[in-house]
């Protein structure tokens, strides 16, 4: 298990604290984890909430929870207090770690500072509440900072299996040095940490943002070898003229967390080729711990638009009407099989007592097909269909078509009598031509289609299109 640091050179550097520049070896990390774990010890398994960022303290608290056999929920420290309070009421954690002072929220907890800089809140009166299942290791939210109480339950086996697979296909070694460019409360961000610890690599723990100069100064100063991003990070990087950026130590960059448009993939593929580095386009879901598939870099040039092949030890099947589709290019639901499939969802404390409900099978809800070589292509979401005059319209397909046609981000929302579209065009008005394109392509009546050009499409903290906000925005438009 990667949190035991077995078979790892203990004198090598494990974490670098970006704020102080201090390096912590694997031996030092073990020592710090023992001090913190000691605080978590008791007769029964406990739930720890961590309102974390990418600080060394956040990483060590996470590892200490794993090492002491307690369950930990990793939540974004930037979540607002009302949402934090709501989650605390629902899940009744015995211990809370927070990078910010949240004493005001926690009347029933006693504050204690451990090892000078770790602020914990311990519940004063622990009543007999539902026990926590022995397999449960980590809880993650699928919605970022919006604070939905629905959490994904991950087992020790889940996080270990996914870390092993990722480390294998990315060929991670102890020479690697990633920078934490995504929040660790986000499954993709956490997978970067897990898959590097398993190989004894060095992680630069930073809270800096990829859009600020300090991030890149830090990256170069510490000779980092990789970073990871979601689509909007790559949109920004193109704006920063990534192909001309001087990043001599960079070896690998990875992208997941939503569809990056084909034009961007092409741009980064060319830039990576010129720089002699590797660019991985990947796909996953928090429900699969993080990763489901990836495109091997050698094949990216000919597989642009594909989410690739299953990760090592995983399997992907396409199902249509409950039957497996064997014929290439026929579309159906993407179903994933692997040891990294979650235990199930939780909506409150009582749900933490149940074991695995999934049996290693995840119905992703994504529509996809395989090509003749087994490379998968996502065509849309199963639930994002609307029926206009009896005609099935795939909202994701409309978005993809518009994005490729007008070279800008697009988001659709629809009911069974209207299709509403927003385009992120930064001030250029293409509403009329876009509307005409939709009407012509899908043979729709002009009265059911409306298009609006905006400066930015709302996204969640993990950078995915925020359909809840988009829906509200478009709903307001017509009332």
């Amino acid at each position, binding site marked *: 298990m990667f949190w035991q640091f077995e078979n790892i050179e203990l004198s090598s550097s494990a974490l670098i604290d970006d704020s102080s520049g201090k390096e912590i070896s694997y031996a030092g990390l073990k020592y710090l984890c023992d001090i913190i774990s000691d605080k978590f010890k008791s007769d029964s398994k406990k739930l720890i909430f961590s309102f974390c960022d990418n600080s060394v303290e956040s990483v060590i608290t996470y590892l200490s929870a794993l090492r002491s056999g307690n369950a930990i929920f990793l939540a974004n420290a930037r979540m607002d207090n009302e949402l934090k309070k709501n989650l605390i009421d629902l899940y009744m954690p015995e211990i809370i770690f927070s990078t910010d002072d949240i004493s005001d929220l926690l009347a029933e907890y006693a504050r204690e500072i451990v090892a000078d800089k770790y602020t914990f809140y311990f519940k004063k009166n622990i009543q007999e509440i539902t026990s926590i299942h022995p397999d449960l290791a980590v809880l993650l939210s699928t919605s970022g900072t919006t604070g939905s109480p629905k959490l994904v339950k991950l087992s020790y086996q889940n996080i270990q299996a996914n870390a092993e697979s990722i480390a294998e296909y990315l060929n991670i070694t102890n020479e690697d040095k990633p920078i934490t460019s995504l929040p660790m409360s986000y499954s993709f961000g956490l997978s970067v940490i897990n898959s590097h610890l398993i190989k004894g690599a060095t992680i630069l723990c930073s809270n800096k*943002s*990829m*859009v*600020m*100069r300090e*991030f*890149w100064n830090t990256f170069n100063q510490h000779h980092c070898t990789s970073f990871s991003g979601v689509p*909007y*990070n790559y*949109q*920004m990087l193109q*704006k*920063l*003229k990534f192909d*001309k*950026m001087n990043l001599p130590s960079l070896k690998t960059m990875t992208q997941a967390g939503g569809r990056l448009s084909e034009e961007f993939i092409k741009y980064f593929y060319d830039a990576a080729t010129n720089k002699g580095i590797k660019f991985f386009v990947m796909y996953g879901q928090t429900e699969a711990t993080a990763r489901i598939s990836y495109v091997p870099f050698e094949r990216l040039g000919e597989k642009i638009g594909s989410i690739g092949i299953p990760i090592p030890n995983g399997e992907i099947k396409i199902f249509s009407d409950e039957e497996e589709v064997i014929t290439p290019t026929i579309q159906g639901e993407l179903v994933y099989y692997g040891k990294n499939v979650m235990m199930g969802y939780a909506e409150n404390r009582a749900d933490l007592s149940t074991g695995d409900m999934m049996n290693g099978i995840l119905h992703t809800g994504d529509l996809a097909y395989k090509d003749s070589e087994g490379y998968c292509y996502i065509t849309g979401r199963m639930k994002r269909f609307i029926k206009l005059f009896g005609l099935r319209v795939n909202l994701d397909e409309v978005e993809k078509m518009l994005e490729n046609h007008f070279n800008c981000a697009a988001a659709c929302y629809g009911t069974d009598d209207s299709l509403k579209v927003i385009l992120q065009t*930064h*001030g250029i008005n293409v509403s009329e031509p876009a509307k005409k394109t939709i009407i012509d392509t899908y043979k729709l009546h002009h009265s059911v289609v409306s298009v609006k050009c905006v*400066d*930015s499409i709302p*996204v969640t*903290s993990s*950078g995915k299109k925020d359909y809840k906000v988009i829906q509200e925005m478009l709903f307001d438009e017509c009332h």
Partner: protein
Amino acid sequence: MNNLEKLKKAFSDALEIPTETINDELAYGSESWDSVAHLALVASIETEFDIMLASDDVIDMSSFLKAKEILQKYEVKF
């Protein structure tokens, strides 16, 4: 609208905050100014002043004050 008002409008639009709350101290990381908003802010400033920001300036634009300094390089006077 003078240039200061135009810049405030660009910030207000991108960060979705009232213009009255915008001052020199407003910096990246505060209010709603995160990495997503930064992309929108850059677009908003480019549209408002009809310029194209160099990549160095995009990553240096870490506060409202800094944005004013940067824009002077593009012959925008305050």
